[in-house]
């Protein structure tokens, strides 16, 4: 059901028309410009990743270099090429390190989205490009945070957003290229301190929308990660620069 769709929709990507917008944490809390790009309609699935490791054995769980993936890497796989019986091929792939996700995208001629690109597409709901002011938008995202084992669901079961992109919310967290460039440190109450100007942004004091606590949690999870981490609730999707200027 999913596969034909992917082929039908020009390699499974849609074009995103870039624009200026104010993210929850801006660089200096100001407007950010997002250029045109294309994004995967769905997160990368287990089946996609099985094909990938067949082609690139260095990312198989027994062969992966320890520096690039921690012990949890593909822990839901039976062996190097097979999922555990409990896992579905069309669930989003998780237990993936940033290195693996990045390489996957690059091997497809794509790359990981930046935080700004990801947040820009993800602030849309089914009808509006910037739905952040709507109560229903936050409510849906938060409902996901409270739903256990959502990573085991299939892709594409949530309605697509106004761009035509599925599952940005509701299944898994997703890796971004610069996931650690906006830092919520371990001590998130101090992040407004200018001491942390080593990093591009900081937490609460610099946030533009203190009620957008769903977004807070996304920034928090990104801040807690290291590139070799592999997590049950963390997958990814790819983007590429657009030819449209």
């Amino acid at each position, binding site marked *: 059901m999913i596969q034909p769709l992917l082929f039908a929709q020009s390699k499974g990507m849609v074009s995103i028309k870039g624009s200026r917008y104010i993210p929850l944490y801006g660089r200096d809390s100001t407007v950010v410009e997002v250029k045109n790009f294309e994004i995967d309609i769905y997160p990368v699935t287990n089946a996609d990743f099985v094909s990938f490791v067949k082609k690139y054995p260095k990312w198989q769980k027994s062969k992966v270099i320890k520096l690039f993936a921690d012990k*949890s890497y593909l822990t839901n796989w039976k062996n190097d090429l097979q999922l555990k019986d409990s896992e579905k091929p069309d669930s989003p792939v998780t237990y993936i390190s940033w290195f693996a996700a990045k390489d996957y995208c690059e091997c497809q001629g794509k790359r990981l989205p930046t935080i700004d690109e990801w947040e820009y597409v993800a602030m849309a709901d089914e009808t509006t490009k910037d739905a952040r002011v709507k109560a229903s938008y936050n*409510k849906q995202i*938060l*409902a996901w*945070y*409270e739903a*256990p*084992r959502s990573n085991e669901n299939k892709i594409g079961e949530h309605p697509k957003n106004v761009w035509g992109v599925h599952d940005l919310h509701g299944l898994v*967290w997703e890796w971004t290229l610069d996931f650690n460039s906006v830092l*919520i*440190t*371990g*001590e*998130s*109450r*101090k*992040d407004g301190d200018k001491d942390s100007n080593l990093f591009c942004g900081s*937490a*609460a004091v610099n946030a533009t929308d203190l*009620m957008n*606590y769903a977004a*807070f*949690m996304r*920034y*928090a*999870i990104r*801040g*807690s*990660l*290291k590139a070799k*981490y*592999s*997590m*049950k*609730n963390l997958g990814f999707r790819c983007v590429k620069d657009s030819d449209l200027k």
Partner: protein
Amino acid sequence: MTLKHTLLKTKPFVLSIKLIASVLLLMTACISNDKKEYENSADIPVNREMLAELTSPPNVPTPVGKRKAKKLIVKMEILEKEGEMTDGVKYIYWTFGGTVPGSFIRTRVGDEVEFHLQNHPNNKLPHNIDLHAVTGPGGGAESSFVAPGHEKVFSFKTLNPGLYVYHCATAPVGMHIANGMYGLILVEPEGGLPLVDKEYYIMQGDFYTKGANGERGLQPFDMQKAVDEKADYVVFNGKVGALTGDNAITAKVGETVRLFVGNGGPGLVSSFHVIGEIFDRVHVEGGDLINENVQTTLIPAGGTAMIEFKVDVPGTFILVDHSIFRAFNKGALGMLKVEGEKDKKIYSGEIRDDIYLPEGPGIQSMPTTGEIIASEIPAKSFEEQMEFGKQAYMQTCFACHQAEGQGVPNAFPPLAKSDYLNADVDRAIGVVLHGKTGEITVNGQKYNSVMTRQMLSSDEIANVLTYVYNSWGNSKKVVTKAMVEKVKNSK
């Protein structure tokens, strides 16, 4: 000195223990017997490793007693899981150790605590821990920020004795606390706290749900209510009824009880009180200051109190936040059940139930059930309606709406020349019948209060409304019993 005092002021007891201990130590010659005093807690040496005993509320670990300072290993797991706030109301709690409040940690001054914070792989969110017992940046939060499926380790020296709160401090901090991420860590002084018969762990917290108090189903967290500090639930130990009925804490007459009480907040301070018991000693705010003979002790959000008392008589003693609507309407209610012999000298119990009639038998009694006894003498004329209506008004409505129907500014709306009243007679009847909660606008002024359902018969409602409509410049409407019955039966 009473028995009560000897039990709590345990100096003689402690001395005797010391004596025995030193005799024992003298007999085992190779163990150093230097009773060295350390001016600075940081200099207290640690001696061997030990895995900390962690307990779920309302239990506490074994007292530290005379043990030497150790390297104490604390392993605490973070679990995000569904629980029940009250019957039929589910909530996703974020927990330290699977419970709200989190596991109780018991240490002594000079311990070097090696803290292992473990974030379960099934969790969705990163977390950390800020222990108020830590001297160091973020109370440990800085070193313990941990992604799901990972474990962070950091270590700290317990420098100050006292009872301390710990909590999660990951953004949005308030939300992590509001979802239950708090607990207590006790740092006992050198030589331990005086021994008591029973010790319990109780922690208050306020919860904010999308639905109102009691609304069933899985209730998500409501950030706006939390920001406004309008709690739907204020509870002890994470849920309504965590300390009542079969879950009540217990003691026997004559026993000494110590309560380690914390307040996780996030928003509200607690006026902690035990109905029918006086606290013999309170470690104010969990510190060294001792207050004696206390009725209610204030526990700040993010603060604690250690409360000690001896139970003298049997019965059920109710633990409350004496901001009392929280206790009886939002859940901040627990029970201490005390078994044993009655002591009539201290408390007699009910002795007699006599009739008391200050003004003779003509006085109107309050109906004791939901059944409303219809007025036996219906009004036969408009004049009688006005007369009976005025009586009913003076008994039932006067206190809030005042003698001339002028109301109380900002609290109770006026009835005199009231546009709200005059606009809709059926609505007015409904308000008297069913009560009214929430915001209304009367003569351009907003009111937001509660009028309870009135215990009046249909005749009495007809009379009192006729009186109101025909007084103070109102619309002179006459309300009949039939009109009241119509509204009553319309639902």
